[in-house]
């Protein structure tokens, strides 16, 4: 799978209340959640995002609440991948569980500007910065997580394994 998208850049410690404020958590439709994504710091963010776009962020992205609405809202905007220096652990689990690609890549943050284009080739395993043409290998998930991803998410993985027991 190849993804090409424009970069939206965010700083450190982007918390889940910023990603999706609690007043919208009685909603579960990703498209409606998307309309409020990043609202406290970038109102109407989803209006500017095109399908496939990429978030690049600093450290501890997704800290705070366990709300799965956060990765759902990001995915609902059309964002295909979040690349951060680091992720808060619950957000990281949630993103993979709902099929939002997340990569920890500390070195990318200072190399890209907002608005740059990035190409990610998941099959060949590289990330290319379109201005400098620099290529970086995509970080590898541990074998255990790869099994979950390759099964098509956590629930499919579990159902498959229950079946085999």
């Amino acid at each position: 799978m190849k993804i090409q998208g424009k970069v939206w850049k965010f700083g450190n410690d982007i918390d889940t209340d910023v990603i999706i404020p609690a007043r919208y958590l009685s909603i579960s439709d990703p498209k409606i959640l998307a309309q409020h994504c990043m609202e406290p710091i970038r109102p109407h963010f989803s209006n500017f995002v095109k399908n496939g776009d990429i978030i690049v962020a600093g450290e501890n992205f997704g800290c705070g609440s366990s709300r799965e609405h956060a990765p759902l809202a990001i995915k609902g905007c059309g964002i295909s991948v979040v690349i951060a220096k680091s992720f808060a652990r619950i957000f990281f689990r949630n993103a993979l569980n709902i099929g939002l690609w997340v990569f920890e890549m500390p070195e990318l943050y200072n190399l890209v500007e907002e608005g740059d284009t990035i190409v990610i080739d998941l099959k060949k395993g590289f990330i290319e910065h379109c201005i400098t043409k620099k290529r970086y290998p995509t970080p590898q998930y541990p074998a255990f997580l790869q099994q979950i991803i390759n099964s098509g998410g956590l629930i499919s993985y579990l159902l498959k394994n229950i079946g085999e027991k």
Partner: protein
Amino acid sequence: MGMTITEKIIAAHSRRKKVSPGEFVMAKVDLVLANDITAPLTIKEFYAAKAKKIFNRNKIVFVLDHYVPNKDINSAENCRLIREFAQKYRITNLFEGCNGGVEHALLPEKGLIKPGTLIIGADSHTCTYGALGAFATGVGSTDVAGVMLTGEIWLKVPETMRIIFYGKKRRWVYGKDLILKIIGDIGVDGAHYKTIDFSGETIENLSMPERFTICNMVIESGAKNGIIAADEITRTYLKKVCRRTPIYYKNDPDAHFCRVLEYDVSKIDPLVALPHSPQNVQSVYELNRIYVDQVVVGSCTNGWFEDLRIVAKILKGKKVNKNVRLLIFPATYQIYKKALSEGLIQIFIDAGAVVCPPTCGPCLGGHLGILAKGERAVSTTNRNFIGRMGHPESEVYLSNPAIAASSAVLGWIGPPEEIGLK
């Protein structure tokens, strides 16, 4: 090499003699929890997977506590979905109304948490239960759907960081200040993916509610869980709430800690976390008059009975400043009833406070006590992110219950000394 308490609990639940930090395991879950925000997504995921069976109807807990009494049609529909699911699968533990309260105060009160067990919850503050010597951590809704199906969860074994507290606390210093001190020092990702193990003579003398408060907020430093070895105080607490025999684990003498921090608590002032991060910590004595519009007492962090007692002690015979709205949320109905029978509610109302039903409401800007543009609140809750309690241009300051109470009287954030209490 020996193991830490967290490593021992994970090993015991993943059929292993030994586990080491960084390893991935499938662990058996003793209790799985979701609330009215996270359970609807869990249930939808469960149905979408065409799953039909749950692993154990006695080990699933639903608590309706965030948007209750329901604030709008969506939240009412969500609660209905949970009730119907609970009925269909004959789930024993569904809590709401007078049988309910804020989940992390409620589950210990109901005797559902015991030392040595492994608890997974779709709420980040599930880590509260580490105070009882259990391994407890927060995950999202899909993870909970997975546990409901299989009774197991994948975990990466965390490294353990040790924090030792010694010395006697100063006046008006509580568990809340100890954890704020840690978050202020190590930062909001200072314990990223780690366990924080708390010990030392101060902890050994700390009440259960203060221990709960400390473990509750480890997530604010990025930790996976917090843990306090069960001791006499834990045993005494458990005797009141549950009859089952727990397993008490201790750190091995040669257990490995990735980092050790020691604190002399006699040097810690009552602290306040300034907007917009729990790590922006400052001594209350260093603050210039920060005027507040609202004061909130409650939540899974500081809505315990002991917290209400502190607030009542400060408010007795006093009036809330006319420019301040003081909202008090007992964390559970049991706590509410006890506060009522001991006369605390009367003190609150006489002082001019609004006493609200047990709910998470204002802590997360859910409902009840939402801040308008430019408004400022001091709160005993756990987070002060941008827009946490309402408008993105409002501000939340975090403090212990004593500081919150004296601030309600003063009209600005200040310690009880400022209203003449020693």
